[in-house]
């Protein structure tokens, strides 16, 4: 069927500036750019003489009218790789103003999806996180600062502590005295993992992202004293040196999960769901399963990697308890076991159940959370915002007196250190960042992660594209980002007059709502600004 889809973008090449170096043509993962040999092709058609004469003419013509770069606008996804890397700054990409007729109700993307589905009969696939203009609670929460009655603290000169531990804590410690009468710890704590900054990288599997991208995350995690997460794609051997900073995920597909994998990771995470696709499984197409992915996921080359929607050993909460215990037994209780869920309507009760099932960490992923691939209808219409989910979960765990039993990681749309601080004030121990980490590595959020064509070398396994990502450089960018956020967090703590992150945790008095309804405020446990 002939496609009626108009191009979304128009690529404009400044032919005066373009030196025809061909970088953009080679680098575009979507094949949107090519050399056009129009002039001499035309000349060949017109010429009636001998081949030798033709060669002469071509040589002559080429000197004056060289090939030029042209774009297939239909293929462009505006990932900006060519724009960023063109040494002459000769490329510009604009939205196509004539793609769809303006309409406040039938917005362009609705029209586009209808056309696509009319042509294909399929589900609309997308990557990244929910981009729809839902209300952002983070943007309607503001932080406090000290004036006079208590001093702010200078974070650059005075100590400022961000260190956070993930793990389960008893309600109380038991102390005994040693032979010298000195107090010593009697309680044996369950395992805790240390974060020097209360941020972890969200789970992104090898398969969904390239090995270079995973390496960058692992290097940054090690440098900054935080954690990255394998996702459900197993742990490639190149990551072994960073294993102390890696969360090993156990998802419904169980890819790459064997005792060695469990043994290596610093912490384990059972993935039940993900904010971008609550209740939805995964599917890594066989064409992405190359030799290395195959080895890491422990499946044959070229075979589809299917992650079932549920874990088929977890149909109820007691089954979750069973899997948690099985993982703890398999690793001899040496590492925390977390559970990751999508923020859904009943999240508070679910979290309470997870805590009681023996999880050490609960990771809640709000509806802004990203993904490598998901049906757009799920991404954009299922799940709830992390701010509300987090507030509800923290409240519930406290009401039940079990907040100490679990650490809470909040994720799904954390854009800057202000969001981090607000999430912690709402009750999180730490946050996870996925999209922000990808952006730090170069991602321009074109949302085509599912295509495997990522020009930035992140969400692709094509060797000519993964080469685009230098793990050392990307790792440094990630580490810089965390450093910058850590400095900002310290500045925020200093202005709040506190010098340890735990004094912000759950301290909702340090938040105020601006423009929130009474009910929102009640759920968030926050007063309106001015009160």
């Amino acid at each position, binding site marked *: 069927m002939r496609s009626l889809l108009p191009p979304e973008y128009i690529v404009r090449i400044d032919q005066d500036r373009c030196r025809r170096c061909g970088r953009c043509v080679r680098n575009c993962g979507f094949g949107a750019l090519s050399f056009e040999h129009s002039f001499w092709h035309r000349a060949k058609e017109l010429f009636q003489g001998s081949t030798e004469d033709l060669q002469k003419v071509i040589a002559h013509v080429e000197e004056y009218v060289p090939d030029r770069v042209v774009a297939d606008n239909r293929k462009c996804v505006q990932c900006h790789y060519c724009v960023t890397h063109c040494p002459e700054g000769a490329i510009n990409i604009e939205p196509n103003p004539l793609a769809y007729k303006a309409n406040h109700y039938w917005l362009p993307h609705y029209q586009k999806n209808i056309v696509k589905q009319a042509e294909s009969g399929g589900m609309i696939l997308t990557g990244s996180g929910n981009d729809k203009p839902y209300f952002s609670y983070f943007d309607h929460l503001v932080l406090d600062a000290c004036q006079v009655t208590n001093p702010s603290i*200078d974070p*650059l*000169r*005075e*100590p400022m502590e961000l260190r956070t531990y993930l793990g389960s804590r008893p309600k109380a410690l038991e102390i005994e005295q040693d032979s010298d009468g000195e107090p010593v710890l009697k309680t044996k704590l369950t395992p805790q993992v240390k974060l020097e900054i209360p941020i972890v990288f969200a789970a992104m599997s090898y398969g969904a992202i390239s090995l270079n991208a995973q390496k960058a995350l692992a290097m940054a995690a090690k440098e900054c004293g935080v954690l990255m997460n394998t996702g459900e794609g197993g742990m490639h051997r190149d990551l072994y040196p960073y294993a102390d900073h890696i969360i090993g995920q156990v998802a419904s597909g169980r890819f790459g999960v064997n005792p060695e994998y469990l043994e290596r990771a610093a912490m384990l995470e059972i993935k039940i769901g993900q904010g971008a696709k609550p209740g939805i499984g995964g599917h890594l197409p066989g064409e992405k399963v190359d030799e290395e992915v195959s080895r890491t996921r422990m499946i044959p080359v070229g075979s589809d990697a299917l992650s079932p929607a549920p874990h088929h050993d977890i149909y109820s909460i007691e089954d979750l308890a069973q899997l948690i215990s099985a993982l703890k037994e398999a690793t001899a209780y040496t590492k925390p076991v977390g559970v990751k869920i999508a923020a859904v309507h009943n999240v508070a009760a679910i979290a309470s159940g997870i805590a009681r099932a023996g999880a050490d960490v609960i990771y809640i992923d709000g509806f802004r959370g990203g993904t490598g691939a998901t049906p757009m209808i799920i991404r954009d219409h299922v799940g709830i915002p992390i701010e509300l989910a987090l507030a509800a979960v923290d409240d519930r765990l406290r009401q039940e007196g079990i907040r100490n039993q679990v650490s809470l990681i909040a994720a799904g749309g954390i854009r800057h250190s202000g969001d981090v601080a607000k999430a912690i004030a709402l009750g999180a121990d730490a946050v996870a960042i996925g999209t922000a980490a990808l952006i730090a590595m170069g991602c321009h959020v074109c949302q085509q992660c599912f295509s495997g064509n990522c020009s930035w070398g992140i969400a692709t396994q094509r060797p000519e594209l993964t080469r685009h990502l230098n793990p050392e450089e990307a790792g440094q960018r990630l580490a810089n980002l965390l450093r*910058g956020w850590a*400095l900002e967090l310290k500045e925020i703590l200093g202005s709040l007059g506190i010098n340890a992150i735990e004094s912000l945790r759950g301290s909702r008095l340090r938040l105020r709502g601006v423009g929130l309804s009474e009910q929102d405020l009640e759920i968030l446990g926050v007063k309106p600004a001015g009160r």
Partner: protein
Amino acid sequence: MGCELRNRVEAVEPYRIDAQGMHHRQLNETIRAALSAGYREIILDNVNGQRYIGAGISTPAYIEINGVPGNDLAVFMNGPTIRVHGNGQDGIANTMNSGTVIVDGSAGDVLGYGMRGGRLFVRGDVGYRVGIHMKEYREQVPVLVVGGRAGAFCGEYMAGGVLVVLGLDRLPGQPLTGDYLATGMHGGVIYLRGRVAEHLLGKEVQMFDLNDQDWKLLGGLLDEFGNYFGVDAAELKKDQYTKLLPVSHRPYGRLYVS
């Protein structure tokens, strides 16, 4: 009391005030009255906790205090000499411009905050954040000498001037200063009698040996300290000293992006 004083033109005798139970406003008013009456030497007896003694005074004067003066002694002071026969409290020489304060005993927190000139000598121990943000400008170089130990954050933000910590009369095992010594220091110099453990140092400074010029400066201050408190300066000079200097005048280069 003030009226009676106003008639005196030149005073040779010291003027004595019994500060027992006196509110600081009354006490300081009396001091100001005595000064404007021409007295240049004032003795305060039974001082206990009265604040702001010497505040903002620019007249040359010698004020002797028997007792424990309250907070903000010599705040904004410009010229006089104050001798305290006793301990001091918090905030001595706060933003002091010039003059000398000598404390026979120990003193509290935040001494010499923003001090831009003059001298403060304390014989005993001092509290937290001593010498915080002392600064110098041209010929105005503040000096703060501590005979005993100093609490944490000593010399914090120090931008100029000279800070000396002698650590006399320490118990065995007691460090010379608390933690975060000279954190944020970006100017001036700190002299320590002995050394401190590296982990107590702020990240902006390093320890150095003294050169001849340092010895000249420090030697003079030790002599002065010896004179005030009857300590043998020659003995003090036999000890090892360490100098703390900021390693960079702009230690925060990589903090911001725009």
